[in-house]
């Protein structure tokens, strides 16, 4: 690969910047001593992922990522943090980083596996002609992937029942 050519394409430079921000944010997610800061760093990493989808032309997926992950899942995390212990303001609950090395090994292993699998799966195929607009997504989702789509609703129901069983005692009789 010719690096000079690579850098002369503005898209590549933007990609590089977004990717670096994402990597830095992801590292802070696991190294930050403050849980709330970790969650916010995760927001930045997810926003970067949304940005990458936008660069690929997948508007619908990008904003779905923002709506569902940043707008709902991380808020759920924040609530989870605040209902267990809410270290407010300048009194952050120090996180325990004692087992950082095993964690690092696991993270590295996962990264290598996912990276290898995705590169092998996509080979050198370009992503052009992919499903981009919301409408096309709807078509593909409801024709080709309709069974997984219905399965998702089961998974969501199961997740919620699990959550309720954990969170609530049975009403006294």
């Amino acid at each position, binding site marked *: 690969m010719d690096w000079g050519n690579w850098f002369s394409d503005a898209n590549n430079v933007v990609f590089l910047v977004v990717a670096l921000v994402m990597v830095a944010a992801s590292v802070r997610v696991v190294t930050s001593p403050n849980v709330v800061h970790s969650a916010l760093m995760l927001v930045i990493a997810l926003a970067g992922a949304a940005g990458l989808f936008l660069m690929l032309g997948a508007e619908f997926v990008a904003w779905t990522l923002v709506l569902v992950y940043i707008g709902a899942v991380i808020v759920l995390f924040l*609530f989870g943090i*605040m209902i267990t212990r*809410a270290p407010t303001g300048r009194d952050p609950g120090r996180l325990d980083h004692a087992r950082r090395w095993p964690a690092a090994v696991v993270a590295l292993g996962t990264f290598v596996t996912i990276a290898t699998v995705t590169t092998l799966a996509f080979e050198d195929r370009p992503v052009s002609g992919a499903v981009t607009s919301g409408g096309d997504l709807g078509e593909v989702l*409801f024709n080709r992937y309709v069974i997984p*789509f219905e399965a998702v609703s089961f998974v969501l*129901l199961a997740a919620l029942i699990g959550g*309720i069983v954990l969170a*609530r005692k049975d009403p006294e009789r």
Partner: protein
Amino acid sequence: MSLSAYLPIAIMALLASGFAAISLGLSRLIAPHNPTPEKLDPYECGIVPLQEPVQRFPVKFYLVAMLFVIFDVEIVFLFAWAVRFTQLGWYGIGAVGIFTLLLIETLVYVWKRGALDWNVARRSRRRPAVVEPLTEKAA
């Protein structure tokens, strides 16, 4: 779609945050700055604060957030279907109907389990505690 459609959004994000940051900075420059220890205490309606803020919150807030995640996912799927409403026809309505039915079932389940009840928990009707008359103790 091209990324140029997002140019106004990027410029506006810069402009809005820039405006907020600059006006806050300006206020910092021209406003008086005269902190005293009392002024810097957390607000407590004039009393000296003794406790840290509440450490725990009712788990209901968490359940609401969880329910919201599920509804959010549902809404996104519904939008993806709605823009192809005419093309998918009754087949699409059927597919999305099954999905919505499960969502409604989720809501019914949560409702029946009382996770949506925010009024004060109905206290179990125990016998009222016997209150010792104060006068005898005092005597």
